[in-house]
């Protein structure tokens, strides 16, 4: 389980645009870096990130090796109703991880 830092407000007003920041521990090995023996280390990156709000997709990103190690992603979403935000990272070597956070949306 990779360490994750997710920043989501605990509460929001309906219709408010909230900022979501995510950071996951992952080397994002590019496939262009030589190892100690001089051979290129094989690529191993996070390739997809999806955020859903009560199951509905609000943001998706395709990542390439040019994204820095321990990838940081910040985006926004409209607060519609209270519930669960789910964050899924997936990538090379079967890497897959989902984290959830709850949010209360009230006037």
């Amino acid at each position, binding site marked *: 389980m990779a*360490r*994750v*830092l997710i*920043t989501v407000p605990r509460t929001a007003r309906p219709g408010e645009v909230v900022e979501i*920041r995510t*950071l996951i*521990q992952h*080397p*994002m090995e590019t496939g262009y870096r030589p190892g100690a023996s001089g051979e290129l280390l094989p690529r191993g990156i996070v390739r997809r990130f999806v955020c859903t709000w009560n199951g509905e997709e609000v943001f998706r990103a395709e990542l390439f090796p040019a994204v*820095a*190690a*321990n990838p*940081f992603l910040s985006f926004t979403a409209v607060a519609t109703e209270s519930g669960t935000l789910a964050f899924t990272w997936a990538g090379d070597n079967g890497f897959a991880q989902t984290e959830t956070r709850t949010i209360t949306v009230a006037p």
Partner: protein
Amino acid sequence: MTAPQRRRLLVAAAATALAVGVAAAGERRSGSDDMAPETRAMQRDDTANPGMLWVQEGEALWDRPAGRAGTACSGCHGAAAASMRGVAARHPAYDAASGRPVDLAGRINQYREARQGAEPFAPESQELLALTTFVAHQSRGMPIATSDDPRLAPFRERGRRLFEERRGQLDLSCAQCHEDNAGRRLAGSVIPQGHPTGYPLYRLEWQDLGSLQRRLRGCMAGVRSEPYTYGAAEYIDLELFLMSRADGMPIETPAVRP
């Protein structure tokens, strides 16, 4: 006072001033003062500072039972925010058992062996880095306050000599860059004064979090000298000197550096 006595006194005073160097000469600058604004912003923002991932890991390890005793750090020390506050600011500290200074990571491993009955963590291992970062983080914002225990004096002095000793194929000493030329540029980067205010830290160059020893090894490789092995006494003595030189500067762990 005779003329020769006065001359000796003046020379001694000048030598002391030179030896204290950057600390007395004027403004001391942490590496964060020399960084680009974006990198400073990355360090300041706990939601974006990659070092916080290791703090989180360390927090989990703090509560994890280990070893024959089956106790966690929290079992004896309780909440780290209270019990570990100020600890990093006082290390390296004198260790009576070994008769030498010990750094924070070494202290953690000592307790792991002695109190938890567990294998010490390997140097620069993820667990040791995470725990050290978590513990040091509890001192963030506090001024460095190395102990004035007189038994530390010979080791601090040895650290100072290591700092001033030329080494490697490039025949450079730490002091020549980080004392004599601090603030000037080398290959586009500002040479920092080299105060260990934020270790363990996330270095953009490493794309990873590492200890002061890792950084020292990098410098030694940079001047084409053979680095000492991890845990070597030389690193501890050097760290003791560097921390003393940085006395009063606030701890920034986990720092971010280019």
